[in-house]
């Protein structure tokens, strides 16, 4: 009854299905989503023009001068020719035409837009970079070490160190330095060989300090809850209004106030990944914790973070525009798109292009980012992929 099974069938060939790497597969899916593709193209254009714009508008004699005031040319509409007679030769705009018109101080709007592109780009990326970095750190801690408890002694050491730093900052130098030194000494002792030795055999009274207090996870999530209680725009507004206005402050503040989402994503991913078999397998093979985290878990957790990062860039740009509108943006004469937009609001009926051009630009760029982010989300979410 049984056929001969020893010899492999002649002509046993591999099934001709093409093999694709993960990137190729992702790219293939991405290509199908037209809007996401458009988003990426627009983003590339934006990036390109921001970089070129920076080159073209900075320096002392830039090709496109964004801050050259020509009061006699104020509020010229787009594509209008300059009044050559009233201008000195170096005041003429490049290409002899006001591509986007001029604003109320006679500055070339096109040049300002170019300069502003770079600012918007930086604000977006730096702010999101900060928030993602914080988010991954906090979320990773909470996710990976979440179930561990903070021991009392660790709490004490942290308190000592913080108070020392605080006192130092508040001016009580000697006390501050003393506490800091004490805290660091304790840290070194506990890591050193005799410290580790002594830990095993602590006298009963001192063992109290080894007690577990709160879980790491609880602490971090409560901290996130506290941050959540501040309506984000108000927080940014408060801090920005109280700090001296500068582009760096804005970036840092936006970054420092928007990490909650990332934290939650990363924590959720880590929590679920931690239970998965491949982590247990890696542990069984003796792979150290740090290596597990970075080589195995982070790449998997990256997906939702990437999505929220692209959308975060979009929202950072919008926030900057909003802040400029209220008067808290980057100080003049540096141009940002939000700046131009808010400066233009006074002339909305006389010179609509001052509002329209930056507004439309912001809209397109932010839209592109959002579409790109959503496209990423669709690709990276295996459940929403069509099944065969």
């Amino acid at each position, binding site marked *: *009854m049984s*056929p001969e099974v020893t*010899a492999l*069938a002649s002509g046993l060939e591999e099934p001709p*299905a093409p093999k694709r790497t993960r990137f190729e597969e992702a790219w293939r899916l991405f290509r199908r989503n037209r809007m996401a593709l458009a988003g990426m193209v627009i983003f590339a254009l934006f990036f390109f023009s921001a970089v070129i714009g920076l080159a073209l508008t900075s320096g002392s004699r830039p090709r496109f001068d964004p801050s050259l005031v020509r009061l006699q040319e104020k509020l010229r509409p787009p594509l209008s020719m300059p009044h050559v007679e009233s201008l000195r030769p170096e005041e003429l705009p490049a290409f002899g035409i006001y591509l986007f018109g001029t604003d109320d101080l006679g500055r070339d709007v096109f040049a300002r837009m170019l300069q502003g592109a770079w600012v918007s780009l930086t604000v977006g990326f730096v702010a999101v970079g900060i928030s993602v970095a914080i988010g991954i750190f906090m979320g990773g801690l909470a996710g990976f070490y979440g179930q561990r408890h903070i021991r009392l002694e660790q709490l004490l050491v942290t308190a000592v160190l913080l108070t020392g730093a605080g006192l130092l900052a508040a001016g009580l130098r000697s006390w501050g330095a003393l506490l800091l030194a004490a805290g660091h000494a304790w840290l070194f002792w506990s890591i050193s060989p005799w410290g580790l030795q002594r830990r095993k055999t602590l006298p009963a009274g001192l063992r109290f300090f080894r007690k577990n207090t709160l879980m790491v996870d609880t602490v971090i999530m409560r901290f996130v809850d506290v941050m959540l209680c501040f309506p984000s725009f108000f927080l940014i507004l408060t801090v920005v209004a109280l700090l001296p206005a500068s582009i760096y402050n804005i970036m840092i503040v936006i970054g420092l106030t928007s990490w909650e989402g990332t934290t939650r994503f990363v924590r959720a991913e880590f929590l679920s990944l931690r239970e998965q078999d491949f982590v247990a397998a890696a542990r069984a093979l003796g792979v150290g914790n740090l290596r597990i985290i970075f080589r195995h878990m982070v790449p998997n957790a990256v997906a939702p973070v990437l999505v929220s990062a692209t959308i975060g860039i979009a929202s950072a740009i919008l926030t900057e525009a909003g802040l400029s509108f209220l008067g808290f943006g980057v100080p003049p004469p540096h141009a940002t798109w939000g700046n131009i937009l808010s400066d233009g609001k006074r002339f909305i009926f006389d010179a609509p292009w001052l509002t329209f051009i930056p507004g439309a630009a912001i809209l397109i760029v932010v839209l592109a980012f959002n579409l790109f982010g959503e496209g990423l989300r669709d690709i990276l979410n295996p459940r929403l992929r069509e099944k065969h």
Partner: protein
Amino acid sequence: MTESLETVLSVEGLKVYFRSEDEVARAVDGVDFEVRRRETVCLVGESGCGKTVSALALLGLVPRPPGEIAGGRVRFCGEDLLDRNEAAMETVRGRRIGMVFQEPQTSLNPVFTIGEQIAEPLRIHLSLPEPEIRERSLQLLNDVGIDSPGQRLADYPHQLSGGQRQRVMIAMALACGPELIIADEPTTALDVTVQAQILRLINRLQQSHGMSVLYITHDLGVVSQIADRVYVMYAGVIVETGAVEQVFRNPRHPYTQALLESLPSRKKRGRRLYSIPGTVPHPAYKPAGCPFHPRCPRAIGACREQVPGMCGFDDHHVARCPVAAGRNAADWCTYGYPSN
């Protein structure tokens, strides 16, 4: 069982394709099978051979994009099912054909009680008044072997075990007294002991309710226990069919033979287990000719060039392998040729 009974379900040349941007996956590539009254027919094959898709296609449950019915005919009690619109299909589903799915964990709606979910088909299809619905539900739960049915009616799915949930699924499928039950691997996700109970249950219900059963599985052991007739499927086509005893005792198609060969048994103790070399082809990239030929120990040149048709062997036992029937290239079987 050998007298010619009335055919309840008849499928001819069914094709279900899944189209994506650059490829067409031919999940079901021209299958013929039928189920007669009071019969248990098994559709058996490895994962990915198209058996589940075939079953879904019968009830119009294949997601329309990307899937599509690319051809064939399905007749149920004489009526054509494939060209009915959605509203007409709704009168067939649940009322005349019941379906039991594979994953009891996720197949019940978690936010409604068991009682509510069983009551739905009774209310919609039979328009029974409420007190009768309750009585009927209790009866059904009793039939499928769930104890304290009164309590269970008010429970939510997460409060039941896997085996109990599957019994509830069976009860829902039976609720309106259908003529055909399609069971898609109902026991795969359950323990072996529970599996045995469910199989016995299905058998018993079939006797008492007089319905036909189309049972889909990859487990040959299950086939031997409950089936009257069996269809063996591979890569979207039927490769062998016949009465269970015949096919098991005397498999003709090399694939069936290999399947049976790879079952562990006492005879093979101490020997290395047999496994079929190679892998199942991707449904979009099937080999030319016979889909099994790359892995077949008896393939000849003609197997690659000509698509084999069904060759008759014993009484009603046919297999799609001319080589097994002793034919050669000039004399290829063409009966039941899957039309391209």
